[in-house]
């Protein structure tokens, strides 16, 4: 990881219209309009992308478990301010280790407007496990297929269109080191948040009894916390006896988060309608 200096935009990108609209905001994330989470396996170039977008210099630890916190930064794209949250690199979201809990709690309770899952094109299968687990929690997912240059060098060809079709969410090929594809990624994220690109994440069905159990729990959760976006995932976690989720439900944390989210939505729609009229 010696090559951490990234110049964005690069020379030939200057002429690209999308890039002229990216502004690195460093840690000035005071009044952002949207929150984007960055998830991914360790060593996939998550922090390289984070540094490229925010202009920050996040240090990367090469020990899983050394980084158990998250980093935040900001960027502006198309005159919209985004807060970017770099989550710890994890292989899954199912276990109770501290790094995975930080990532999972943020995607679930931090309610990001969109989650980018950075994947390693040279080890796609392992990376997709995490993508599918993130898609269990939230619909608003964009998959960034990073390290495309390395994949090509290894003689691999990654068909991101087939990937998008199968996963039901956009998959964008990028090379974070050179900045290639990053502009497309950002505009896709914006479109997904605005609802211009429909998302229909692929989800694992499970056994019939399991489906029945989930379908019994989901309405209960929804009636307790109307408007909750991930009742299905909460139901699955409850069936699994996840104490963190149990605590969130009994302590009222969940209802509180949902109502806060709702308020923000109202504000956001108001703002949109005002801007729309202008």
């Amino acid at each position: 990881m010696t090559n951490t200096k990234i110049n964005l935009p690069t020379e030939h990108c200057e002429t690209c219209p999308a890039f002229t609209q990216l502004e690195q905001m460093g840690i000035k994330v005071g009044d952002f309009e949207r929150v984007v989470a960055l998830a991914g396996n360790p060593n996939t170039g998550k922090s390289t992308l984070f540094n490229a977008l925010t202009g920050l210099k996040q240090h990367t630890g090469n020990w899983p478990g050394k980084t158990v916190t998250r980093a935040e930064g900001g960027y502006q794209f198309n005159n919209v301010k985004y807060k970017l949250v770099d989550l710890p690199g994890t292989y899954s979201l199912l276990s109770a280790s501290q790094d995975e809990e930080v990532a999972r709690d943020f995607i679930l309770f931090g309610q990001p407007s969109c989650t980018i899952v950075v994947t390693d094109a040279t080890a796609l299968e392992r990376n997709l496990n995490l993508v599918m687990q993130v898609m269990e929690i939230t619909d608003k997912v964009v998959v960034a297929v990073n390290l495309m240059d390395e994949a090509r060098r290894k003689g691999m060809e990654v068909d991101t269109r087939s990937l998008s079709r199968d996963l039901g969410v956009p998959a964008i090929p990028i090379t974070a080191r050179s900045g290639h594809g990053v502009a497309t990624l950002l505009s896709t994220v914006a479109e997904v948040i605005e609802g211009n690109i429909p998302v229909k994440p692929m989800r694992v069905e499970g056994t019939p009894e399991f489906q029945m159990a989930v379908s019994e729990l989901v309405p209960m959760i929804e009636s307790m916390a109307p408007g909750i976006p991930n009742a299905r995932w909460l139901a699955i976690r409850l069936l699994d006896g996840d104490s963190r989720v149990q605590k969130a439900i009994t302590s009222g944390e969940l209802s509180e988060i949902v109502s806060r989210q709702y308020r923000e939505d109202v504000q956001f729609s108001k703002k949109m309608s005002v801007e729309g009229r202008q």
Partner: protein
Amino acid sequence: MSNTTITPNDIISKAESLRNNLSTGFRDEIVKSIYSEAEKVANRAVKTATDKRYDLDQKIDRLVTSPITGLPIMLLLLGAIIWLTVSGANVVSNAIATVLFSLGDLGRNLFTQIGIPWWLTGFLWDGIYLGLAWVISVMLPPMMIFFPAFTFLEDLGYLPRVAFNLDWMFKKTGAHGKQSLTMAMGFGCNAAGVVATRVIDSPRERLIAILTNNFVPCNGRFPTLIMLATVFVAAAFPPALTSFIAAGTVVGVVLIGVAFTFLMSWLLSRTVLKGEASAFTLELPPYRKPNIGRILYSSIIDRTIFVLWRAMQTAAPAGAIIWILANIHLGDSNLARMIADWLNPFGLLLGLDGVILLAYIIAIPANEIVVPTMMMVYMGAGMMINGPSSNNAIFDLLVNANGWTMLTAINLMLFALLHNPCATTVITIYKETKSYKWATLSVVITLGTAFLVTFLTASIAKLLGWV
């Protein structure tokens, strides 16, 4: 009951009753189907040119993680690092000791000449300065070689391969496979190893990893092992073989430590921390060409200087305490000698002696200073003022003047390996577990093992008439 008022407790009890109806493996089923779906999606999207698939990384991995060659390669690497450390440190250590001890002589003479009272001269030069000089000459050289070598393997990406090789053994003991990673970190520093256990998700397995981390010798204890292996064990062999025998002895001691890690993990997972080992996925990251400049920087500045500074902070007061103890005269003895004499019967029972135990008590804040403390107590008891700067002088001081035998040396190595964690590690264990009980248990388990093992070897040796 009306359906409009669903309380959180309703949901949780409902979930519990539903869970009981599900087949027990439903979670595994879901995980399995996620994996198989991921495989299908990936296969559809990725086209691989088959001839390029097996690159160098995979060829190396086949060798270093193979059931046949994996473990021998691991032992060879460990042996090579320790041999480098032993043979390199020996030369530098003697040079540093000579310089520092003659500086001490100069300072003492200067102070005496300009009429500074004897007690102040003694306190400063024979107490604090001597403590510092000892720690630097004993610790600095091995650290300067061991830390860069260890960091090199870490940056190369070898440590996850170690975890891969040892996984099945840890699983058999009922512990987590990632414990081999935290164990490896323990070689650098046990407190760091305890913090590294955060990568283990199950609290039960994490506690096992925490409680047994101390059974691998940290960098503070390596110098003790290296000195004893060189001065005692290797001295019995021709000079040409010295460094190999010494390195082999230290590797042997490390393996005993690893054996105790397994034994204790097994005992814990069958008694106070019962349970099954959990499965985990371990990724073998690509090998990366280590950046030599960065290795030198992080191992010398972040690790060596950091650890040495910590050792010096405890060595200075420890040196002062020893000097005071040795200079409070009661009759024709002094306080240090009296405490050592009082501890002696117990020490002899363990194949050690009273001075060694006293050194261990003074060295509780940091294990690094055990050997220096020991030497100073022996010398403070009237043997010599100058520090012995060569291995022969150390041998002379210990064997001829203080009655050490091979049993003393071997048992001291075992004791250094097995005894309680240093204060920093115990505090770290408390911080990580938030429990006095586990922090206390970590001391009881290790100290108990150390007492038991040394008592047994001493008794057997005496019974067979070896000493």
